[in-house]
Each structure stands twice: as C-alpha cells, then as structure tokens.
C-alpha cells in the first residue's frame, strides 16, 4: 500500500443516500479472481446504458468530473455486502477518498485496508459539499482535517492505528504476524 498523507482534489458528487455495494459494483462482476480491472464496471448500472454507451447525465461521466479523486455521497455509503471489490473498483477508477455523513462498517474497514479514505463529516459540511460539486478540497491525515475551498477546516474521525498504517503505507498483516508469540500463547491457554 502506498503511503498517503494528504489528498487534494476536486470532488464528484453522488447525493443519493444508502448507496449500496451492489450499486458500486454489481454481483455479476464479482466472478473475478484478481483485484484489478474493476474500475470500468464501477456504478455500472448508473453509468452506462444497456447498450454500453455512457449516460451523459451521470455525475462521473461529466467532463468536469474527470480526474476527480474525492467522491462525496449521501448518508450510509457502502451499505450491503462485504465485497472488497467495492473499494477495489473505486480505487481502480481513481477515487482515493469518500466523504459522507455515515459510512457502512464493513465498507469502511475494507477501504482502510486498501488506502481508500473514509471521511465522515457533519450534516452541514455534507450539505455544503453536495451543493458544490467540483469543490477543491484537501484531506490531511496528520491533522485528520478536511479543508474546504474557503479555508474552513473540518475535523473527521480516524482510528489511530488505521491512520498510522495509511500514513506509513503499512499493511496490517505484517503487524499481526508480529504478534505470533502472543497468538501462540493464547492458543496454548485456551486449547490445553
């Protein structure tokens, strides 16, 4: 995982609430055995006509959304299945952070493990962001703040260990493998 300390980008906005993982990446694309190449099917049903032609009105398809790395979405983003294909698809497409007032637990966990930043903000900040697509914002992990175009800084919660792993590009498996003595001690205690 690449270390990530700050992210500055314009936003692309999907105001819908409860955007579930079946919308992010429909089940028929889950028959893959790798992590790559899912970006082309991100939001497939919303993004393309049945013929495969991009729908011009969909936010991600507009010219001004090209290159945006931060997705602003309505409440409870990522609800539904545990498919890690959802953050893989977002990352493969080029999204590096999701901002919402609420982000579903498993999606949040999966995102953190792949370097996709889940940023939970208050209602007012969310409303402002939804009303201002294309806003140039900065996410800073050192201070765990989101800076709006006017310079206003909004604090967001980020669990200390996840933040450390993100900022240093550390994957958690290495940390867990480092706990092997404790794991073995636990096993000998409960499995005499």
């Amino acid at each position, binding site marked *: 995982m690449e270390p990530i300390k700050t992210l500055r980008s314009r936003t692309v906005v999907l105001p819908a609430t409860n955007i579930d993982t079946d919308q992010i990446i429909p089940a028929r694309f889950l028959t893959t*055995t790798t992590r790559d190449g899912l970006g082309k099917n991100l939001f497939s049903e919303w993004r393309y006509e049945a013929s495969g032609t991009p729908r011009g009105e969909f936010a991600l398809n507009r010219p001004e959304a090209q290159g945006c790395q931060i997705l602003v979405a309505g409440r409870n983003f990522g609800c539904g299945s545990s498919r890690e294909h959802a953050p893989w698809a977002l990352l493969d497409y080029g999204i590096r952070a999701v901002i919402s007032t609420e982000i579903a637990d498993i999606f949040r966990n999966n995102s953190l493990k792949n370097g996709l930043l889940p940023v939970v903000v208050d209602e007012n900040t969310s409303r402002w962001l939804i009303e201002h697509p294309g806003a140039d914002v900065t996410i800073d992990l050192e201070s765990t703040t989101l800076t709006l175009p006017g310079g206003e800084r909004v604090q967001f919660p980020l669990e200390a260990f996840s933040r450390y792993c993100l900022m240093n590009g550390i994957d958690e498996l290495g940390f867990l*493998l480092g706990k092997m003595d404790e794991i073995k001690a*636990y096993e000998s205690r409960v499995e005499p």
Partner: protein
Amino acid sequence: MSRAPQTMFEKVWNQHQVTAETADTPAVLYIDLHLIHEVTSPQAFSVLRERGLPVRRLDRTLGTMDHSTPTRTEQVFGGAPITVDSAARQVRELETNCAAFGVELFGLRSAQRGVVHIIGPDLGITQPGKTVVCGDSHTSTHGAVGALAFGIGTTEVGHVLATQCLLQRKPRTFAINVSGQLRPGVTAKDLILGIIGKIGVSGGTGHVIEYRGETIQSLDMDGRLTVCNMSIEAGARAGMIAPDETTYAYLSGRPRAPQGTDWDRALERWRALPSDPGAVFDKSVDIDGSALEPMITYGTHPGMVVPITGAIPVKQGDAAFAKSLAYMGFEAGAPIKDQMVNVVFVGSCTNGRLSDLRSAASILRGHKIAKGVQMLVVPGSQQVKKQAEAEGLDKVFIEAGAEWRESGCSMCLGMNGDLVGKGQYSVSTSNRNFEGRQGVGARTLLASPLTAAACAVRGRITDPRELMNG
C-alpha cells in the same frame, strides 16, 4: 463475584482477546471458525502465496461453494458446464486453493455442500460463544446460536487464513427487546423486516445487536437464524441471541457438535454466556411483536417495508424516495396488495432452511402457481434438499408448477445464472432488494416464505393468511 455485569457480546469478546485494544492499537481477536467460499477468497490465497505463508489453522477453516455455482441439476451433476465462464474459473480456483493449502472443501458435488450460512449451523460447527467470520456480510446469521459472527472483506480473510486473528476495535452494543406473541402468518422474517423498518438500514451501524425478550426466546432455531441473518441489513456488525434449551436441543447430536463428556463441558460454558442481569447496552429499542403483520418491502432497500395490508407511503420532496419508487414502478399511496408478481424465489441464507420450505409448501399444497409466474425453490444445502425430499416437499413444489433446484445462493444475487429479468417483479425470501440485486433492472420485494408462496399462487401480492388452512 464483584465484577460488573457483562453482556453476552462482552463475554465472547473478552474470551477471544489475544491482546486488548489500546488507544494506539486495536485488539487482536482470535477467530474460532473461518468459513470460506469462492467469491471472496481467491485474492486472499494470492496474498498467502506472495508471502509464502501457509493456512495457519486448517482445523478451524472450512470451505464451500455457493455464490457463483449453478442450481440446475444437469449443471451440478450432469455434463453441462457452468454457463458463466468466469464463475467456472472461480469455482476451479477455490478447488485448486483448498487442495494446495489443505483446506477442507465441500465441492460442487459434495452431499455436504450448501450456502455457507446454512451449513455452519446445520453441521453443528457454529456453536455458542465462538467467534465466527466469513467473507460475507450475512455471517451475522451464526449469531443465532450465541456466537459472535460477522462478515469481513478479502484482506481480512487473508489475515485470518495466515494468523487465525483479526485486528478489531470493540463495537458498541444494542439491545432489541421483542415482546408479545407473533400472530398466525407472522414469521421471523416479518419480525426482522419490521425491526429494520423501525430502526432503519443504518440503525445498527457500529453496533452488535442482541435480540432479546419472550418473542425471540419462543422462536425456533431456524427463525432465530433468519432474524440474525438480516442484522447487517440494519447496518449492524453482528446479531446475537442468547443460547438456551432450544439452542442445545438443536445442536445436540449434530455431526460437528461436541459429543459425550465434551458436550457436558461445552454445555457448562454455554450456560454462562447469556448477558448478566443488569448488563448495560449502549442503546436499546422495544418492539411489540404482537402488533406485527406479514411484512413486505416496496422499495430498494430493506428498510422500505410495509405491512402487507398497508399502502406504499407518500413522501413529498424526497428525491431518493421518488427515485426508488420510479425504479420499482410503484405509485406512492397505492396499496401493496394485488400488485403484479412475475417471479417468486424461495431460498437463500435468510430463508433456505427446512422449516422455510415446509412453510412455503404448506401454502402450495393442493394449489397451482398462477399462469405466467416463474417460481424457484432452492434449498439452502444439499442436506436440506435431502430432508425436504424425504418429506415429499419437492413433489409439492413440482406439482404446484415450481422449479426444484440444487442448493446455492441462486436468485438472491445475480451472479450464477439464476436471474430476474429487467422490469420484472420478484417476491423473494432473500435479504436484499437493492436495485439490480437479482438481475439488471429486476424489481425485488422481500417477504417470508409464506407470503412468497401465496404470491406465487395468486400471481399478485397476497396476504398469506388468505390461503392458510385452519
């Protein structure tokens, strides 16, 4: 004893902490049982290969295939291939991975194969007080026996394969107290749909739910599994129900449940699991079970649910609501009853157990499904299939005009060839009515097996009580 009263969740959590959480680091939580399947494991095995790691505890790991497997008998047992190439590759990859790493796998033609959340309890390998994980959000199902069970992503599948542990922050606790007797025709499925309708699809986020109260205690094991299954539909990490005599009677004698003196010792441990009197939950809600009616969803998430006698709500100025109704082709204010039905699906990890099939059969017996309706009945496991056939349930379904299939996730999610067509209305006993869940443009209405069967008979949304005998 002077320690503070604990919830069941806290007891299981504390018993599984390899190291406790600190301000800087999450807890290292030990996992007793890891269930794997074909969709969320391939990339995890790739990580093991890249790092040269073995599967650390083969005795705590069990594989099955369910999501992308076909359900037509000729495809499972005949020479007919799996029609979706990538699905066939995924199934082969699971076989290759399990063989290479030594993981026990119930393969495509195994008599023990089935939907991962059906076979765990069925084998008796899901037990009270255990930590159970699987790369599938409906792992919450296993909490019905008093286990702490939750879904994980593929990276975490890799962590458990390699270390038998996960890094976890302790979730909060949520008591859902249900009182009153469920009325005839009102099932565990209606109860959980009613609960989600009340607390909302993110009402449980960050929490482990404990379902409590007389109504929960009076449910049989299959009903409890249905309730816990849909905990994730309320956004919860997990759902749990305290083990009791119903649980012990269910587990006793199952192939992988403890036997003999091991059983006695296990029982002693299990009896200490229920939440202590006075244990404090972070939040709670009370539900009157006796007020519930058969429930059915009308929208595109499981919280958009009404009693079957009710009408589709009217919500002015709510764009998301309007979009959802437009997708469903429904009008605000219209009664849900008598809306059109094209497809009926009975099955899934929510309602693919023997009692669910009995329930659907009780409505279908002596009836034909309506002209033009396609009905699929898909047992949750090959064992369930065998038991259902021993009771003659398969004949009831076939005589009514339904299709009787091999086990699998089938129409619950559109990735195995069992699909609902664009614009078609499907009454489904599964767990998700998201846009496109059962196929591109498919319109899903979630309901109980009783309601689903009644809808199949009439070809319209039907209150099952109109077709119930006695």
